[in-house]
């Protein structure tokens, strides 16, 4: 490539595009949790613990993005 690309632009695009997927994932989990708690509120604790596992799994993707962003 003849033209130079600013690395800051690439970094901005990395975090911007990389945050889309986890954001959608966390949103879906949140919607599902609210729906599940609304249907049967008595097992709220169980639902929330499962939801935290799922949020942890999804957030790992964002962590990889941060890792790539800060180490290159």
């Amino acid at each position, binding site marked *: 490539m003849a033209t130079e690309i*600013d690395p*800051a632009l690439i970094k901005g695009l990395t975090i911007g595009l990389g945050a889309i997927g986890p954001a959608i994932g966390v949103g879906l989990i949140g919607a599902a949790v609210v729906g599940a708690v609304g249907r049967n509120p008595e097992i709220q604790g169980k639902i929330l613990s499962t939801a935290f*596992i799922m949020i*942890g*799994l999804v*957030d*790992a993707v964002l*962590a990889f993005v*941060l890792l790539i962003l800060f*180490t290159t």
Partner: protein
Amino acid sequence: MVVPFFGAGGESLAAEKLFSIGPLPITNSMIFGLLTAAFVLGLFGLAARASSLWPKSRLAFWCENFVDMVLDLMAESFGDRKKAQRFFPLLLTLFVFILASNFSGLLPGVQTITYNADGTPIGLFRAWTTDLNSTLALAVLSLATVHIYALRELGIVGRFRHYFSGNLLNPMNIFIGLNEVFGEVLRLVTLSLRLFGVIYGGEALLFAIAHLAGNFAWAATLPIMFLEIFFSLVQAYLFMMLTATYLVMALPHEGQESEAAPKPAAAMPNGRQAKA
């Protein structure tokens, strides 16, 4: 202009070598990992010594409550309290040690107290889980436990049939089995990289926010700090739960063969009660 996040005293991706004993290099994360392990051992050792039928020490009371809570959680996910108690020491140790290591990266002085090894300043301490070597070691430990126990319970043929089930002349079954074996290797990668990525990425984020905020770093890093505490908890919990889930999936399920016999006996009192 590119902000040099890691040029100005940030942490590098790999743990730095402090000194070496013979051919073995000792890194800063190893030293801090040993300190964390000593702290956890000391804390739970004290609690175990003070533990009694009617605990008078507050530490013993809280530790017992915590252990009981985790045991209840494990009994729920194993579906059997006795089976959960068999693997409970490993799972609790994983949880507590990973949690302590994650939190230790947030302490003041970690990465900021430096040591001059060869003229270049190196952080003397570094949280144990921000090194890929250590998280990989944890993942190898937990997955080796899963495989060894599964081999002992099922035998080699049973373990093989766990992956390649059904008629082996059908190429589809072989393909599914190969996929399962590949997933097994992938577990090692995801288990280690997830813990490392989240904790290391979080610390890099803290460092970057502190540098971007300048004089207001004390206010800007506070919400990130809470985020880090939350992530540390979730990742430690996740590691324990994933190990438990892999164990549950690999071991034979109840009602398969060995535990089919006690079931009618257990059903007897219920039947009597229904009659009476």
